[in-house]
């Protein structure tokens, strides 16, 4: 990582030196330099993460929490150290409130199963129209299992959560949980978390934020936003896949039953019955993703060294530039104009299907995503079957955005 040799005022150029940390950015695709604009699906990995994971397997690997030998103790220390890092990253008041999961989907499913088991028929969960399937299907399953009600808060045509409508959904006091995204993976919309949390709490509900996109781009403080649960995944945060995080308030986690049974989540087991371990281990059955957790720790160290101020400024400048450039492409329409948006831009183009756009961009070495982005109900709300989506990482440059716009102009002329 080399951030300091030249003082630059452009927040996009300020992070240019980081590209050297990402070996994959030197690859070519179809004979052209790779332009990776699909970071919202999964981000590329810096050499610091790659080395940390390889180093763990080369020199300090053993199972954790169960070995009496030095290697196990050392690996346990490394693993548990990441729990401290995560707590610091999101401003959690206690490391015991950090639960490691496989991904944010599992984190949300954990809440749906465990917190959901405390809910009774007649109570309700509120989600929004812009949730992706991971924050929709678990609640449908809970509804079908327990008879709770699932309510959907609408969004505006611009892609903002309709707060007045949300308020009306909370009015009868039967909502137990509001579960919404902190940043949409399709529209880039950043939701007003503090306001949503206050509304939920005033109505006697708890609030869960799906922060998988948000933690990549902005500093998150779970206490400042008033969250009760916060979920995110490691692989979008420049870490490996297979490791995710659920943060929850201690009092809630203590009250909730285990999600899965097995080793490490118990304090005593008899054939007649078992007693559960304290949090967070109550929710971490079985051997966890040891190497991946160490990789997540390296990723957190990396982004903290870069700094969220620099990352957020880079993102804001890139989004502004991209909206301007894409606005110049004939026939292209950016989907959603939320009041506050992150580094995710969905678009459609007259006469060209998103899949054709993605295939032709790929031939230019440009990777974007096309489809419904695991948000089919949102697509229906928008009156679309699919969009193309460009999403940015801290390695994305102004020139890459320009290359996207130029390629889209060519694609446009190819299709008309």
């Amino acid at each position: 990582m080399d951030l300091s040799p030249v003082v630059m005022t452009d927040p996009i150029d300020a992070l240019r030196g980081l590209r050297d940390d990402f070996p994959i950015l030197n690859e070519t695709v179809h004979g052209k330099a790779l332009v990776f604009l699909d970071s919202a699906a999964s981000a590329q990995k810096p050499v610091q993460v790659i080395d940390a994971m390889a180093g763990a397997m080369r020199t300090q690997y053993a199972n954790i929490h169960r070995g009496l030998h030095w290697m196990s103790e050392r690996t346990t220390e490394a693993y548990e150290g990441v729990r401290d890092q995560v707590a610091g990253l999101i401003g959690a008041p206690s490391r015991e409130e950090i639960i490691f999961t496989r991904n944010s989907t599992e984190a949300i499913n954990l809440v749906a199963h465990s917190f959901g088991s405390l809910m009774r028929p007649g109570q309700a969960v509120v989600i929004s129209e812009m949730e992706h399937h991971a924050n929709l299907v678990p609640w449908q399953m809970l509804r079908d299992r327990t008879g709770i009600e699932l309510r959907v808060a609408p969004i505006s045509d611009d892609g903002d959560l309709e707060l007045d409508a949300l308020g009306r959904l909370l009015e009868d006091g039967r909502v137990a949980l509001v579960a919404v995204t902190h940043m949409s993976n399709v529209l880039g919309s950043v939701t007003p978390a503090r306001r949503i949390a206050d509304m939920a709490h005033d109505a006697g509900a708890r609030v869960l934020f799906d922060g998988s996109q948000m933690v990549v781009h902005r500093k998150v403080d779970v206490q400042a936003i008033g969250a009760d649960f916060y979920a995110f995944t490691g692989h979008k945060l420049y870490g490996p896949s297979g490791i995710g995080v659920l943060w929850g308030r201690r009092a809630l986690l203590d009250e909730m039953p285990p999600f899965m049974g097995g080793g490490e989540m118990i304090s005593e087991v008899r054939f007649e019955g078992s007693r559960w371990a304290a949090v967070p281990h109550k929710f971490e059955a079985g051997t966890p993703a040891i190497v991946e957790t160490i990789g997540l720790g390296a990723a957190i160290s990396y982004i903290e060294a870069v700094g969220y101020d620099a990352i957020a400024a880079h993102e804001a400048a890139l989004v502004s530039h991209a909206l301007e450039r894409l606005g110049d492409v004939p026939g292209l329409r950016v989907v959603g104009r939320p009041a506050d948006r992150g580094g995710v831009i969905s678009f459609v183009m007259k006469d060209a299907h998103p899949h054709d756009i993605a295939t032709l961009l790929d031939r230019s070495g440009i990777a974007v995503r096309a489809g419904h982005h695991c948000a089919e109900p949102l697509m229906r709300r928008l009156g679309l079957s699919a969009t193309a989506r460009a999403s940015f990482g801290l390695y994305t440059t102004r020139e890459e955005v320009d290359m996207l716009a130029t390629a889209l102009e060519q694609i446009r002329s190819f299709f008309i």
Partner: protein
Amino acid sequence: MDQEGIYQQQVMDRARAPVHAGLPEGATHEGTGVNPMCGDQVRVGLVLDGQGRVARIGHRTRGCAICVASADLMAELALGCDGGELKAVSAAFDRMVRDGGAAPRDELAVFAPLRRHRSRIRCATLPWSALETALADGRQRATDESKDG
């Protein structure tokens, strides 16, 4: 533009102006193919003659250029064929785009380059899935139902 042959002129022409768009009146068989990964949808309607051959056919496709062109060419080639012939063509078409087999009809060779684009193969085979579903569908369709396309 570098597109490695998957958007040949014939494909683009069919995609821009499909000749067999719309479901035929009085369709005796209908089938739908949906790609859950992208939401693309192909609906195929058929009228079979007394010998079980396709007398009329049309499609209503919401999809990419590959999908629309494939549906349209499929409809053209299906005319006059019976179910067994169409199943054989469909299977050969599937082998062509997946494994590089020979084109079952010369017109379908324009889709052969898809073999190098695994993520797009389903776009071309979706109409054929819809056709197979239609052929398996023996229900008589009410006229007013078939007119909605």
